[in-house]
């Protein structure tokens, strides 16, 4: 049975719960400790966007199976002000702001897929995926320490 955990995000304490849930699911799915840390870090960034810009929302972490691959999906949703120019965020035009763009920047670097669905006044949904796979650096770190 595939796993799914939903964490309501209302404060920065919930962010810690969400990133630990993400790490736990990743490890249970067979991700390396390094990849599980990538997932936890990306969740922390995206959850901060929720608490700072929308006030509250939720994060769902679940297993995904596509094309014979196993992975993990993180769906972060809020009913906040939304984003006027999603493309600009994805292009990293906002990178230097160290706010919203910084979190998305981190998520893009740490996860395999990141998609943003948002319109002004209609909230924001960020969907991120990471696929379970072999990583030489991660394998060395997991077994070499």
């Amino acid at each position, binding site marked *: 049975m595939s796993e799914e955990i939903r964490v309501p995000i209302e404060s920065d304490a919930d962010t*810690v719960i969400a*990133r*630990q849930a993400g790490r736990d699911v990743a490890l249970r799915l067979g991700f390396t400790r*390094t990849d*599980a*840390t990538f997932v936890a*870090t990306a969740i922390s960034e995206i959850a901060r966007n929720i608490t700072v810009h929308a006030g509250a929302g939720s994060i769902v972490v679940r297993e995904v199976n596509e094309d014979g691959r196993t992975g993990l999906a993180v769906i972060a949703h809020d009913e906040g002000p939304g984003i006027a120019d999603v493309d600009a965020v994805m292009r990293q035009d906002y990178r230097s702001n160290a706010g919203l763009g910084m979190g998305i*920047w981190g998520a893009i670097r740490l996860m395999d897929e990141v998609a943003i669905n948002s319109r002004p006044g209609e909230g924001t949904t960020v969907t991120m995926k990471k696929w379970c796979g072999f990583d030489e650096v991660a394998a060395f*770190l997991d077994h070499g320490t």
Partner: protein
Amino acid sequence: MAVSILKQGDYLIASVQSALTDTEVIELRDALLAQVAKHRSLAVIVDVAALDIIDSFAARSLTTVARTNRLRGAKTVIVGIQPEVAVAMSQFGLRLDSAHIALDLEAGIQLLTV
């Protein structure tokens, strides 16, 4: 706060005990800056081995501590960054500018005494 700060002669040694919320990261930042000023410390060693992640917020806060201490003539040494946390920071592009880095507490103290 899940952090202990001990005075050891001219140094302060701060040990993070668990994962921290953003609020606790700010408390740590402010406590370190206040304690360094109060004790006229020459250096502060921050052991972050218990941190599950170091994201943009934690990195920015630690950098603020290091930069502020530098302007007051005190060194900041970050020790104990876990290997997978270091890989994630590297992949993200996060740096701890102005801070000295050492593998663990022992290496951090050694770095200050040479």
